């Protein structure tokens, strides 16, 4: 039986152009520019200086706080610059630029393809290793994974959920990882289970990836406690709270963490990264990025070094087509539009969408006709039309009363609005202001 979440949801065109493109490794670029703020939380502290020689996998910036992550060099070579570069939001961020010389990996890293299934480390060692490897949630949220593996005191985790939903249109990176690296993912899940001390894990996969479901069901027979749960296709099923609801029927209370209902959610890509970190001692220095778009020459799932410039990556995929007007990091529903192409690939970049005018252009916003389609689309049971109005009128206290902080910014409201109103634009602004008010009250 297919499961899904109950409140709201929409069905965008799937556009999974690259679903059958095998993961392709991209040659290390001549230079990489590695930002020190690729995760939620404090920026990392830079450990290298100009002129330093580094190897691929060498630590170049260490975690700058409890919620923060280590950062490693993704190539071997010389540090040429430590400078301010524009982030995806256009504001400046610190980044380490490394000029590549050869491709020498830190000798402790096992670069072979041999599958290692035995887990020799203890739970606390696993968490430490995951933290050292700088692993963050690879679905796009970039929350440091080792923090998620250490539930707050007093909370017990009963079940590990693995997010193989990939509900964003266009993206297929997780899909390919499951198909091609199934054993590694399952070993990664077993490692995560051991670290969390749980005996049960469920992989949620949407029904539009039958090959991944088949492969994972087949392989999971050899792994104790791991189940595969096929899910109905509905956006935003990959949202943490929606996935927990879909698989366990439990609702994470407003403003609480998933562990409140005994669940911890990790992404398929993260599980793979954990496998590599724990079994192969390989830090997070490369990731699968789906480079896609209806008009590009070579769409595909590319294994890219962190810090590669987006421009270079687009060249790999056949160059920027003339009709592309928008380049999005992530999926079309929640991704960020890039203001510039000389931005580096960061740990959280799950996809790179090159969108032409006809797909992405917004229509002129019209009056709200109160059709209530945004209300029925909202997966959090909010009233987006109202949240937009109160945000626009800067009635932030009212917005808090209307639970604006519960918004997961999935974009279902703006997506569905017949009047093409910029609902989420205003809700984001209102949510940011409401958050400031709540923080100042504390």
């Amino acid at each position, binding site marked *: 039986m297919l499961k899904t979440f109950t409140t709201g949801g929409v069905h965008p065109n799937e556009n999974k152009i690259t679903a059958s493109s095998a993961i392709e490794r991209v040659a290390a670029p001549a230079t990489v520019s590695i930002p020190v703020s690729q995760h939620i939380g404090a920026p990392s502290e830079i450990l290298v200086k100009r002129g330093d020689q580094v190897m691929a996998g060498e630590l170049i910036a260490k975690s700058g706080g409890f919620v923060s992550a280590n950062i490693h060099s993704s190539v071997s070579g010389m540090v040429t610059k430590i400078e301010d570069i524009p982030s995806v939001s256009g504001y400046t961020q610190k980044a380490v630029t490394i000029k590549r010389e050869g491709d020498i990996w830190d000798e402790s890293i096992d670069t072979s393809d041999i599958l290692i299934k035995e887990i020799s480390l203890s739970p606390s060692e696993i968490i430490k290793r995951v933290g050292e490897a700088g692993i963050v949630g690879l679905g796009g949220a970039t929350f440091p994974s080792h923090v998620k593996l250490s539930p707050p005191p007093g909370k017990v985790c009963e079940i590990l959920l693995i997010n193989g939903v990939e509900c964003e249109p266009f993206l297929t990176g997780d899909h390919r990882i499951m198909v091609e690296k199934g054993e590694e993912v399952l070993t990664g899940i077993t490692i995560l289970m051991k670290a969390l001390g749980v005996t049960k894990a469920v992989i949620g996969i949407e029904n539009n990836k039958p090959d991944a479901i088949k492969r994972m069901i087949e392989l999971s027979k050899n792994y104790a406690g791991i189940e595969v749960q096929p899910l109905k296709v509905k956006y935003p099923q990959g949202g943490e709270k929606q996935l927990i609801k879909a698989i366990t029927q439990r*609702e994470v*209370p407003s403003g609480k963490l998933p562990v409140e209902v005994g669940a911890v959610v990790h992404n398929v890509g993260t599980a793979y990264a954990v496998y590599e970190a724990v079994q192969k001692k390989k830090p997070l220095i490369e990731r699968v990025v789906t480079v896609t778009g209806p008009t590009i020459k070579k769409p595909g799932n590319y294994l890219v070094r962190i810090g590669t410039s987006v421009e270079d990556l687009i060249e790999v995929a056949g160059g920027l087509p003339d009709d592309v007007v928008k380049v999005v990091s992530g999926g079309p529903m929640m991704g960020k*539009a890039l203001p510039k192409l000389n931005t580096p690939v960061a740990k959280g970049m799950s996809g790179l969408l090159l969108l032409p005018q006809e797909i992405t252009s917004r229509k002129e916003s*019209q*009056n709200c006709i109160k059709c209530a389609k945004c209300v029925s689309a909202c997966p959090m049971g*909010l009233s987006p039309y109202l949240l937009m109005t109160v945000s626009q009128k800067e009635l932030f206290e009212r917005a808090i009363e209307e639970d604006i902080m519960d918004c997961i910014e999935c974009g279902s409201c703006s997506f569905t609005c017949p009047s093409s109103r910029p609902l989420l634009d205003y809700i984001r602004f209102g949510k940011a202001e409401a958050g400031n008010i709540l923080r100042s009250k504390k």
Partner: protein
Amino acid sequence: MSKLLVSHSPHVHSGDSVNKNMYGVIIALLPALAASFWFFGIGALVVTLTSVATCLLAEYIISKYILKQKPSITDGSAAVTGLLLAFNLPSNFPVALIIIGAIVAIGMGKMSFGGLGQNPFNPALVGRVFLLISYPVQMTSWPEPVASRGSYIDASTGATPLAIMKEGLASGSSYSEIVAQIPSYKELFLGVSGGSAGEVAAIALLLGFGYMLWKKIISWHIPVAVIGSTAIFTGVLHAVDPTANATPLFHILSGGLMLGAIFMATDYSSSPMAIKGMWIYGIGIGVITVTIRTWGAYPEGISFAILIMNAFVPLIDKYIKPKRFGEKVVE
């Protein structure tokens, strides 16, 4: 490729638009329109054309010369109002009065509040109730179905099933005696009965309902709540006193209940936003309709019921919120 476009997510859109929804409603109204032409012929044609044309013209003139906005008549909403108003009028209704009704519907019911999406009341019903109160004689003379196909003002008239029922019960006859004078369920279902041009054929209205559900133009909650509550309430009354009260099926199939429940009560801007609110609103309409039909002065009450519940919508929206995901934890 020159300068990249930057905007908030989402970067794609469902493609839904106001026009699509409004034209969808018009398509859904086509079976009922065809039925009205079949039963009332030339009269229905005159009424519909006059009403739609006046609504479009009124909206154009008001938005261009009074509100000084870009006229939005192409979005289809004025045409919907015009069609619905025509459906709510007898097919022998004089042209001059239709024009007055249409101007009231658009001017008072819609544009005075700021146009599409701003109106608290269903514009077509505002027009209809205005006409009903101002011109009760013309509004309650109903051409005979089929027989009056070829004639307009001079059509031979008869009473609606609801009026027959009301008068019959008022004069002391029992329900079983009156049943002989009214059309059978089958006739009511197919629309072979007196009444407003577009309300008679239940089957045509249900076809439109199915189309709107398929195209996701409306949700099913309001129509089901209205019809369901009417059925339950009249069912109870009928069970208590079968001689003085008609059966639920009669109530559902006769008068404007179907048209009101499917097309008028579901008007976007004058109906609630949350599902629970839709239930309250729909049940309210059903209960008020039956109350007026059973104890009120008018044989039919759906128009008043919808307008009354329209007035409660802001209040419903204020207090009835959609069911939140993850209820608040009280600490």
